[in-house]
């Protein structure tokens, strides 16, 4: 039996969480270092996964592990990764050390309070972050639907405490009001996701019932179900398949989040500390979009095609609505939250365009959005912690007093608006091309969000960083070493992947091809009509011949 690499990658942060939580109240600094070293160890393991993984090898999943768990219910402990999962595990393991470093002082107890045996906020904060990491990693790895479901739901609990328990002390109306708003945000987060999860549970059981009915023994194994479908042993029937698809999709659309199920995200991101906001949007929410690719589409290909038009419209609304609301925000963190909603719209658009560019682009988008949002949000967090306010109007002229901070903020912002040369450009371009080749109208409308993105990012920069220096920011210190250590690698990575995305695309593309083969979709052929009779018309005019393809 080979070394269980995938299990180890999830167990290391889990052990780290326990170790961190177990440290006594006085060992605050030690707790931080323990958490950081465990997160780095996880990153090393994630790199080992990426190295041992061979893109394009036979079979959908590699490094698989499989053990019996509850034989009577067909539940197995089954792990395996494809290129998409490898990329997202790497992203998660990469971001967590930065999240921990960025939040180094976020959970320090206030000066007049003394932590005791029962109340150790610092230990709790870092332990919860590592717990979330462990659960996210295992949900990227799980190929058993039930196993995935368990951790998909379980991560709500540490997230709830992270959102509700730790604030940035930058609320508009004082700490007491902020605490109320925080617990409101945490409850909203929990209830939205719990509702999604319970509906998914019904669908998970429904899936078991369907397989038990037709295969003799019920199973939750994704590869087995996909195989049985391909071999023709399993016919769900259109009605059942659609209901099950909706059950799964609802949970993932809440998590992702997709308009109109998005309203918890601005609350949660706005009220939590910026490292936790990064954890929500860059790591945890990715499980939602990832699961659409891995579970929704592969388990229910027919229903996915059936639902595509509606989902595309909802995604398009997310793209535009998120961008429009971001333009109108007064609060920096809420602005980034709405920008994220817009970006998640792009990701879902790419996934359901059902083209290799679209899905490949969507996967890249998940990674790049993670990195760019982390950069922007963490710098924004540094900014907010200096001034003690989240309101855009409270800033002005920061670039004169803290040029490095302003510069990194600008790069994070430019990445968010997908400037060519930075990583998100590649993915946004691929998503738009992939969408356009099948649904030109939607592709065109979605492009409008690029303009809106430029608007909200540049106006944010202009209002906070340029102009006359406000009295309150006059003494603002520039980035410290710790903060630079957080930001510099992220920016370097954005530049690198913007110029040379090949390692990532090579990793992702075979998995995307496999997904598309399950759905039985091929990229639309370039369909170019050259009108010979009227010499005036230009060649290259694409017709709507794709619609026939789309209609089936």
């Amino acid at each position: 039996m080979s070394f269980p690499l995938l299990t180890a990658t999830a167990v290391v942060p889990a052990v780290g969480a326990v170790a961190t939580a177990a440290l006594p109240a006085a060992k605050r600094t030690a707790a931080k270092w323990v958490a950081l070293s465990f997160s780095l160890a996880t990153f090393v393991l994630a790199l080992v996964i990426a190295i041992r993984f061979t893109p394009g090898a036979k079979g959908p999943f590699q490094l698989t592990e499989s053990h019996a768990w509850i034989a009577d219910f067909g539940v197995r402990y089954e792990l395996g990764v494809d290129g998409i999962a490898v990329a997202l595990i790497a992203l998660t393991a990469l971001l967590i050390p930065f999240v921990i470093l960025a939040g180094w002082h976020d959970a320090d107890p206030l000066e007049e309070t003394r932590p005791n045996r029962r109340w150790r906020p610092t230990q709790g904060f870092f332990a919860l972050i590592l717990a979330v990491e462990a659960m996210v990693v295992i949900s990227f790895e799980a190929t058993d639907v039930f196993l995935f479901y368990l951790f998909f739901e379980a991560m709500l609990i540490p997230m709830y405490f992270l959102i509700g328990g730790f604030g940035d002390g930058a609320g508009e109306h004082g700490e007491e009001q902020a605490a109320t708003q925080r617990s409101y945000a945490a409850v909203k987060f929990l209830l939205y996701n719990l509702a999604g999860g319970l509906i998914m549970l019904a669908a998970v059981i429904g899936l078991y019932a369907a397989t038990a009915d037709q295969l003799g023994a019920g199973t939750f194994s994704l590869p087995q179900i996909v195989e049985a479908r391909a071999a023709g042993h399993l016919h769900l029937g259109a009605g059942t398949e659609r209901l099950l698809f909706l059950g799964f999709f609802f949970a993932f659309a809440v998590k992702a989040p997709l308009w109109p199920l998005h309203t918890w995200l601005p609350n949660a991101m706005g009220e939590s500390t910026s490292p936790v906001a990064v954890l929500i949007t860059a790591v945890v929410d990715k499980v939602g979009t990832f699961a659409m690719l891995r579970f929704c589409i592969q388990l229910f290909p027919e229903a996915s095609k059936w639902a595509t038009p509606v989902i595309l419209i909802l995604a398009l609304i997310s793209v535009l609505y998120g961008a429009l609301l971001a333009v109108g925000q007064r609060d920096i963190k809420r602005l980034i939250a709405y920008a994220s909603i817009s970006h998640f719209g792009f990701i879902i658009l790419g996934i359901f365009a059902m083209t290799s560019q679209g899905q490949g682009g969507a996967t890249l988008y998940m990674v790049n959005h993670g990195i760019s949002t982390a950069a922007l949000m963490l710098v924004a967090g540094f900014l907010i912690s200096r001034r003690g306010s989240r309101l855009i109007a409270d800033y002005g002229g920061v670039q004169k007093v803290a040029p490095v901070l302003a510069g990194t903020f600008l790069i994070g912002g430019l990445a968010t608006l997908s400037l060519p040369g930075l990583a998100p450009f590649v993915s946004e371009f691929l998503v738009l091309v992939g969408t356009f080749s099948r649904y030109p109208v939607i592709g065109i409308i979605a492009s409008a969000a690029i303009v809106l993105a430029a608007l909200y990012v540049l106006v944010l920069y202009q209002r906070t960083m340029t102009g006359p220096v406000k009295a309150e920011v006059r003494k603002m210190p520039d980035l410290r070493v710790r903060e630079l250590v957080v930001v510099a690698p992220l920016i370097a990575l954005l530049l690198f992947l913007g110029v040379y995305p090949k390692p990532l695309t090579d990793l992702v593309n075979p998995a995307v091809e496999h997904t598309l083969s399950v759905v039985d979709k091929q990229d639309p052929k370039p369909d170019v009509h050259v009108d010979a009779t009227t010499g005036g018309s230009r060649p290259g005019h694409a017709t709507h011949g794709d619609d026939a393809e789309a209609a089936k």
Partner: protein
Amino acid sequence: MSSVATVHSLWMTAADAPGRIPGPHIEYAQLSPTLIVLGAAVLGILVEAFLPRRSRYHTQLLLSVVALAAAFAAVIGLAAGGFGTSKAHVAAMGAIAVDGPALFLQGTILLVSLVAVFTFAERRLDPASHGKRVDSFAAQAAAVPGGKAEQEAVKAGFTTTEVFPIVLFAVGGMLVFPAANDLLTLFIALEVFSLPLYILCTLARRQRLLSQEAALKYFLLGAFSSAFLLFGIALLYGYAGTVTYAGIAEVVADGAKQIDPALAGTMGNDALLLIGAALVLMGLLFKVGAVPFHMWTPDVYQGAPTPVTGFMAAATKVAAFGALLRLLYVVLPGLRWDWRPVMWGVAIITMLAGAIVAITQTDIKRLLAYSSIAHAGFILAGVLATSEDGISSVLFYLAAYSFVTLGAFAVVTLVRDAGGEATHLSKWAGLGRRSPLVAAVFAVFLLAFAGIPLTSGFAGKFAVFKAAAQSGAGWLVVIGVLSSAIAAFFYIRVIVLMFFSEPKADGPTVAVPSPLTTTAIAIGVAVTVVLGVAPQYFLDLAGQASVFVR
């Protein structure tokens, strides 16, 4: 001489005749679990009679715990000796079955009772009365509530240590109930465990009138149901000419072969069979609290002292479902085309009514009562599967459910205000802020009730619904899942109430219990989590125990 010889031979003949009547052959070792418990109960009565008041409590507690543990060890011994599988047979001249389901259920009942006795013995929750520690039971049950005698009894610091032998009697009856192999044993077992329960229900220390009202309701309705059961037994005897399960099953399957001349007019008459079976089932459905025989449940659960409620909700349900299973699978399998549609209906309305009515409840004990009704419906879905999987899933569900119930009611005893237990839901608001641990433990039990994965409730529901679906009851499962969803709503509402609402200024306090209640709750949590995370071993165990001896 010859006359002497004649007399002698006559004498010998006369003496021979009684010699040929076989003495009853009782397999004492195989009945040892029941005998140990009932013997300890009798000893307990003697303790009450002869020991001084001050040493009774400890003696009784020790006696009960030892007896229940010894009886459990006896069950394990019998199961290890193969009586659950290969050596399963009918003992005590056909009155008691010693087989897998019986041993599994007896083991469950004994463990549940052992944990329940811990909560009965709790003496740190109620404030000390005149310097003496008291439990949840009345100082002197015979004293009129609010009367002079009661005041004197309270002042003297009396406690009702009789509860221990009473519980042991009830447990003894419950052990026989699922193992009973003829209808008369069934009836006697029913009475043996019901009468002590009626008494236990009256014994609350606080709100005694409510408690006595509950007990009276329980007694009257219970008496009705016993009468139904007895009438049904009489009709079945008229139909089959016997009260043994195997005998009735034979007549149901092949028709009456040897007509008893005294019953010539009735034997083999299907009307008697159908009416008799219906009446017997009604008696049992009353005990499991299935709709429409559930009316007593909320009142009794609310009025009875909470430790008694927990014991009753857990152990009675195990015993009654065991008897129901045996009756349906051993006596009436030939009749299943008649009872299945009816029981389908009962299961469906039980699930739905329990879940829907629970939504409107404002008292935690009533809420748990309606939830227990809904759970009775879920278990019935497994009973209706009429397959080995059905039996094993019901066995597993009962084991899982009873510990969750016991733990949940034990937590209810902890939340108190000046008037005793604070059972109104509004008082539980914000409990999670004041006592995160207690609220978290209760949340675990609620999640298990709701059937959330990684708790025993999920494994139980999954097993039951799986068995039901495999037997072709797809619609029953759909309705079951729907009512689980409705039920999940109110369980989660309580969690939201505990954790996400502001605590009231005059809210209840959480009393610090003695190690007894702590142990009970800890065992409840442990079983809930273990049966949720790694249920396979216990599913296998229930699977091995799922064959009835005939």
